[in-house]
């Protein structure tokens, strides 16, 4: 896992042999001419544009940005690998929910001294408004996106937990649809676990967490910030597939602590809100008073137990990079189990011994700001100039608790269609974990993101990343 370790390719073994899960795909790749693959790739893009016509803006600059490159070569996971992953994901999200329930009530983990208090109380995502407030059925994170990277045949690391409003699931669903249309022959040669039931699972999850005061057929809605939001397309897509109303804040109002939507048939009670709106904007009476996107009085209805917000308010305190480093301890503390999924080894610079190690090894480490995201405020040691390393040395000395450090990971690679032909490119994986009152649901696979540039480890779409269909093969 250090920078010089051999890169794990998911298809090809070091000796040139092909891993069993990829055998059929590798044979197919040998027979299909590269120019035909390129043609299919262009067809895929045309299909995405058409789907884009259906769901998003078409023809203005905002939408062209949104067309994320799609790679036509799928990524394959075996059923055994998936079973292990999904057990680990379930365990992780259970622990996150237990942690949130605890930090907003008894705070046993803080009293036990396992997680430093200031990491919670001084965390900008911690919501004092949620102190001692029950949430329906005690579930905080109904929809989680857990970013996973692979470094060898055995090891999957969790790179990041997304417990607020993770996005990207529409790409997972559309990638599969496009693949089935373009390569029907591949689907008759492989037994690929379906993903199309995701939206049914999501609806079942939402209904299962309806407040007790709701009717037996609770009304669910999807709350969007509106059409100027970058993920608006995903919001319309999901609302359409879920068969629920896509509402904006102004469509809702609160009366006597009950949330209603304005419909042509009069006010209609709303029981569950899948909100794709950040905490800050939810209720101008409690959070940002200048927010016109939210619903005045929503928090008071929420505290009265008359509406479920998915996800709950204040979940951001659990997906923070500093709290991340404590996840193994968090899993053990609440579940009494060994974590199935490992964390990327992380040095917490707030601890003097670890800071010392980090300062001595800066050129080989990745240093991240605790609250940063999207790759900002980051040092990638092996690629940094000496001056930049010195700058971070200075920053670390000034405010060590604001940073963590990790080794430079050799992410696994998958065969990918690039200009030169088919070549290995680095990938990660975001499975989506749904937690309902009855059970945890995860559709097999998730969204695979791929760094299209040779050698690049950055899979973000803003920096030349694309996506792939992700197959879990039935054994």
């Amino acid at each position, binding site marked *: 896992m250090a920078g010089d370790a051999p890169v794990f390719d998911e298809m090809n073994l070091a000796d040139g042999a092909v891993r069993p899960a990829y055998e059929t795909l590798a044979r197919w790749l040998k027979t299909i001419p590269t120019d035909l693959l390129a043609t299919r790739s262009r067809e895929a893009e045309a299909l995405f544009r058409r789907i884009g016509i259906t769901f998003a803006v078409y023809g203005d600059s905002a939408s062209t940005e949104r067309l994320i490159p799609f790679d036509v070569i799928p990524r394959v996971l075996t059923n055994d690998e998936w079973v292990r992953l999904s057990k680990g994901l379930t365990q992780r999200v259970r622990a996150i929910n237990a942690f949130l329930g605890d930090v907003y009530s008894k705070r046993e983990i803080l009293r036990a001294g396992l997680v430093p208090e200031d990491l919670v109380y001084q965390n900008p995502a911690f919501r004092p408004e949620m102190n001692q407030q029950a949430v329906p059925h005690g579930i905080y994170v109904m929809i989680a996106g857990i970013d996973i990277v692979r470094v060898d045949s055995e090891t999957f690391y969790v790179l990041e937990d997304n417990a607020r409003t993770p996005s990207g699931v529409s790409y997972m669903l559309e990638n599969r649809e496009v693949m089935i249309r373009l390569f029907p022959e591949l689907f008759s040669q492989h037994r690929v676990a379906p993903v199309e039931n995701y939206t049914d699972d999501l609806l079942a999850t939402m209904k299962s967490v309806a407040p007790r005061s709701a009717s037996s057929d609770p009304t669910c809605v999807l709350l969007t910030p509106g*059409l100027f939001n970058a993920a608006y397309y995903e919001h*319309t897509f999901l609302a359409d597939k879920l068969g629920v*109303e896509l*509402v904006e804040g*102004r*469509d809702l109002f609160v009366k006597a602590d009950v949330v209603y939507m304005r419909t*042509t*048939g*009069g006010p209609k009670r709303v029981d569950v809100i899948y909100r794709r709106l950040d905490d800050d904007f939810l209720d101008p009476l409690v959070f940002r008073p200048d927010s016109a996107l939210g619903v005045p009085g929503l928090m008071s209805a929420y505290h009265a137990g008359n509406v479920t917000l998915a996800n709950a308010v204040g979940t951001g305190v659990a997906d923070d990079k500093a709290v991340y480093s404590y996840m193994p301890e968090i899993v053990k503390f609440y579940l009494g189990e060994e974590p199935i999924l490992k964390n990327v080894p992380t040095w917490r610079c707030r601890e003097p011994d670890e800071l010392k190690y980090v300062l001595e090894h800066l050129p080989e480490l990745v240093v991240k700001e605790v609250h940063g995201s999207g790759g900002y405020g980051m040092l990638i040691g092996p690629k940094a100039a000496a001056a930049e390393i010195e700058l971070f040395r200075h920053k670390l000395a000034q405010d060590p608790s604001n940073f963590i450090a990790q080794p430079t990971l050799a992410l696994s690679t998958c065969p990918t269609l690039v200009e030169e032909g088919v070549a290995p490119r680095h990938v990660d994986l975001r499975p989506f974990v749904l937690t309902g009152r009855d059970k945890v649901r995860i559709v097999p696979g998730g969204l695979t993101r791929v760094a299209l540039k040779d050698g690049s480890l950055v899979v973000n779409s803003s920096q030349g990343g694309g996506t792939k269909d992700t197959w879990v093969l039935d054994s």
Partner: protein
Amino acid sequence: MLSRTADNLFWLARYVERAEYLARIIEASTRLANLPSAYAGTSNEWESAVATAGCAHLFYQAHDKATRETVIDFLAFSPDNPSSIRSCFEVARTNARSVRTALTVEMWDAINAAWLELSKYRASGLNQDEHLANFLSFVKETGLRFDGSAYRTMLRSDGYWFSRLGVMIERADNTARILDVKYHVLLPGAEQVGGSLDYFQWSAILRAVSALTAYHWVYKESLKPWLVADLLILNDQMPRSLAACYESIVRNLDSLSLSYGRQGPAQRAARATRTKLESARIDDIFQSGLHEFVSEFITENNRLGAAITQQYLT
């Protein structure tokens, strides 16, 4: 359905209808303005076009004089005119985007394609007659395509009814507005005074609501001003007449009240106006004042729009 969704569908349909009407006004005015003054009189057709479009006030804030260039630019392209064809298409598309899931693919394609196509046309190019004609037929075709898509592909449920209500309220307003501006050329006195000059004005009115051929089929006569008024106000076979619009409005409001299980002020107001149109005779309307009748209608129609908004869309 969400009130906001219904509101968007209602206004989306209104704006597409309005754009088509504006295109017809420009077309009819161009035709009149091109006639020798011995046929068309000396009146400024472009002034009357601005008045018929209902935006005289805004227009004279932007321009001193109504000429072919200024009026076409203002009615077709001006971003400062909230009812220009451009603005209509823009609002229609924004509405369509935010209720994307309530539209059929065909309806969305019609609006979206129109918006993309619109950027090809520039005001300066429209000085050439051919270019202008292409532009106007593009706008009219958009109306037909959108309307036809709605008719052929939409579920017959509340979304469709709100969309139809938007079309019909806007259409009734447009027909009434052209009568309101041109009523003087239809008065019996004017016929004697104006003589044949007004013939081309009458045909222009009919063209603006695409009723010239229909007139001949219905009356089998040369143009008579009171028959023009009869066709546009009382003839329920004529799809743009006030009577036909109100028949459709009442039907769609009935569908809504049946589906929601209750009636309201909108249903009552619409039925009152329809009854008035059904029982009126054109002679009586002329007797008691065409202008008064039409202005009263415009007020009632606006009031119905407000009642629908109050009852369903907020």
